[in-house]
């Protein structure tokens, strides 16, 4: 009962929870993924615009630098003096004047703050002839790419680490020509890259973790970063964004940054400077709102589930309580308390079921009462029958005994006064009285059997057969009787009753082989499936199979009393005993060819001594 209620309850509960949690999970998941996607798109486009802005700034800056250098190259003083320098001998006072004039211009440029140093390389020798930093003068730059390329057109080098300056730098160079257009040297300047970091680190609108930085073609970080302030030229970055940007692809992605922290990033290549620009923002910050939505959804879901669970419990209780009551009542009725009635009054199915139960109990009660009535009637009838058989036993025998007794006294004391016919008639009376006595005895034995309880135990059937034969031995001791007894299986039976069976069958066999020489009687038996089958076989007068069904009926006889004495009760008794044990009896025979009487008993494989 408990399990029914429990399972019903838990099923309802699970239903409730599923009904609330499933849509909640679906909606939550949808809201989360859509929101996340929207936020990522939003952040990406923001980063993109920031990156593009930075690129523009960088390009403006580079253009500006080029512009400044162009102005320098167009400076008349510089053009004139540079041409002088190619003509004059180094060390002469004129050379000195020209040098100083150029140096002064260079210093002015340097003081603008973008370059350091600014210098002029002799277009033929490749030696630095003038520099805003005098230490550089006389240094040899003939092999430098900026010198070679700068002789023909403006040139911007990649960012590199300068050994002589021991700092990162880039060089901008362009040809310096005199008025006639003849090349008088290459004008070059090292760019102060600090400005790059300051451009990149300008983070307005990028929030707590948003930033931009630059990487050169060797994946070397060339600007300071938010989380590694002095990492410029100290750190190589191989993040997915860095790789894709250097490969020339612009785009956005979710990847792990240099701190190995997940970020949303936008990346692009700045072609002019051969650099990768990366703008990125931590996912934790960018997605903070959606994550908080996620947590909120989780807690709301949890709360709703709890409410659903509670509702489910309340609801399932309201369903299972009547069911439980129903089960309890039904069980009470089932236990036999038919007076019990279910008190459910609801008009739903359960209430109707309860009503049906009550009606059923009522019907059963009526039936039980009927049965009780019948049982009482039956008992009364049985009692009457018992009283009847008791009085038959006692009262019927007394007068019989008197008839027999006084007839006997007549023959003993008064035989001489009777003639021969009188004596014969008397002896007929006596014989019939004795027969009647036997009939009464047999009938009583037979009817008593019905009232007798059988008490079973495992019985050694061979021992039982031996005893039965032993008891009947006096009846055939003067005849030639051959007995064959097989070993037969044991059986669970009422020993006294089976003894009765064996003596009956055996005495029949003795009786009906009268006149046979030798009389052969065979007793055997074997287990057959779940029953044991026993038989008693004789070579006696047998019987016509036509009458086989009459054999076991009480008072049915196939032979006249003149042929074979008997009351016709023995086999009926056998049949009744065997049937009481749950077995069957049957017989096979042929007139003058003998008979076989079989009986079966429920089998017991176990041998028992």
């Amino acid at each position, binding site marked *: 009962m408990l399990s029914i209620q429990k399972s019903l309850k838990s099923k309802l509960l699970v239903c409730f929870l599923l009904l609330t949690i499933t849509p909640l999970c679906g909606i939550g998941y949808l809201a989360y993924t859509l929101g996340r996607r929207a936020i990522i798109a939003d952040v990406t486009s923001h980063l993109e615009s920031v990156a593009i802005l930075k690129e523009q700034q960088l390009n403006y800056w580079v253009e500006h630098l080029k512009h400044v250098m162009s102005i320098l190259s167009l400076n008349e003083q510089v053009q004139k003096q540079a041409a002088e320098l190619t003509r004059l001998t180094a060390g002469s006072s004129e050379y000195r004047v020209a040098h100083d004039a150029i140096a002064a211009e260079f210093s002015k440029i340097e003081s603008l703050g973008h370059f350091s140093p600014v210098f002029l390389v002799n277009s033929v020798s490749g030696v630095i002839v003038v520099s805003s930093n005098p230490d550089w003068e006389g240094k040899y730059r003939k092999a430098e790419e900026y010198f070679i390329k700068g002789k023909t057109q403006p040139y911007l080098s990649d960012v590199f680490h300068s050994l002589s300056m021991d700092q990162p730098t880039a060089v901008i160079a362009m040809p310096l020509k005199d008025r006639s257009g003849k090349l008088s040297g290459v004008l070059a300047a090292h760019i102060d890259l600090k400005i790059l970091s300051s451009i990149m680190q300008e983070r307005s609108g990028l929030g707590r973790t948003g930033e931009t930085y630059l990487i050169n073609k060797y994946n070397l970080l060339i600007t300071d970063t938010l989380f590694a302030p002095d990492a410029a030229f100290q750190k190589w970055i191989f993040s997915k964004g860095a790789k894709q940007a250097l490969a020339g692809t612009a785009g956005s992605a979710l990847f792990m940054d240099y701190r190995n922290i997940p970020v949303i990033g936008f990346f692009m290549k700045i072609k002019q400077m051969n650099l990768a620009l990366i703008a990125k923002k931590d996912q934790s910050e960018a997605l903070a709102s959606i994550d908080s939505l996620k947590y909120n959804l989780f807690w709301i879901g949890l709360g709703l589930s709890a409410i659903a669970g509670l509702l489910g419990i309340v609801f399932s209780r309201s369903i299972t309580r009547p069911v439980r009551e129903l089960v309890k009542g039904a069980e009470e009725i089932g236990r036999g308390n038919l007076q019990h009635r279910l008190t459910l009054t609801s008009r739903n199915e359960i209430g109707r079921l309860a009503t049906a139960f009550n009606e059923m109990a009522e019907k059963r009660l009526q039936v039980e009462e009927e049965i009780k009535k019948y049982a009482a009637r039956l008992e009364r009838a049985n009692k009457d029958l018992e009283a009847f058989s*008791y009085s038959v*036993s*006692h*009262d019927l*025998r*007394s*007068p*019989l*005994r*008197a008839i*027999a*007794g*006084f*007839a*006997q*006294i007549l023959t003993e004391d008064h035989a001489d006064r009777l003639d021969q016919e009188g004596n014969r008639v008397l002896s007929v009376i*006596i014989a019939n*009285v*004795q027969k*009647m*006595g*036997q009939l*009464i*005895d047999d009938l*009583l034995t037979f009817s*008593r059997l019905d009232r*007798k309880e059988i008490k079973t135990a495992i019985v050694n059937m061979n021992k039982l057969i031996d005893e039965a034969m032993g008891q009947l031995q006096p009846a055939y001791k003067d005849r030639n009787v051959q007995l064959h007894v097989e070993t037969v299986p044991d059986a669970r039976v009422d020993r006294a009753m089976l003894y009765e069976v064996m003596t009956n069958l055996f005495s029949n066999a003795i009786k009906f082989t009268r006149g046979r020489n030798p009389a052969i009687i065979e007793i055997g038996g074997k287990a057959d499936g779940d029953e044991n089958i026993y038989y008693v076989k004789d070579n006696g007068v047998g019987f016509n199979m036509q009458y086989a069904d009459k054999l076991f009926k009480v008072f049915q006889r196939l032979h006249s009393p003149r042929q074979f004495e008997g009351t016709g009760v023995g086999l009926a008794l056998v049949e009744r005993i065997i049937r009481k044990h749950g077995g069957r009896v049957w017989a096979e025979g042929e007139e003058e060819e003998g008979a076989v009487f079989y009986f079966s008993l429920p089998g017991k494989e176990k041998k028992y001594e």
Partner: protein
Amino acid sequence: MNNMNAIEILLVEDSPEDVEIALRAFNKQNLANKVHVVEDGEDALAYIFATGAYHERNIDNLPKVILLDLKLPKVDGLEVLRRIRADKRTQMIPVVMLTSSQEDQDIVESYRLGVNSYIVKPVDFNKFLRTVEELGLYWLLLNKAPF
């Protein structure tokens, strides 16, 4: 009947025919004068406990055996047996049920109440005669009574 103190067998039997046949048997053994016959349970008790019509009888002269029919007028055989066994003075008397009933319940109840023997009267006259003779012989001659 006159000398009540010589009585050794008390036969309690309501059927006069049975009484006659029984007496015929005792007669053959010359025991007839030692037999006293009563016809119902009440008389039997009166005789045994020397009350009523038998108040002059000496109660200490116990019969050597009581042959008791089961079905008796007034007080039945089982009740007589119960009363005999309930009284210290009479509880040792051998009692033999001599009856027509072969009902298990009667046999069991008789033994439960302490009967010494239970014999079903045969219908056969000769057998009945022999049975009664043997009973007389056994209880009077062979059996050793404790009193």
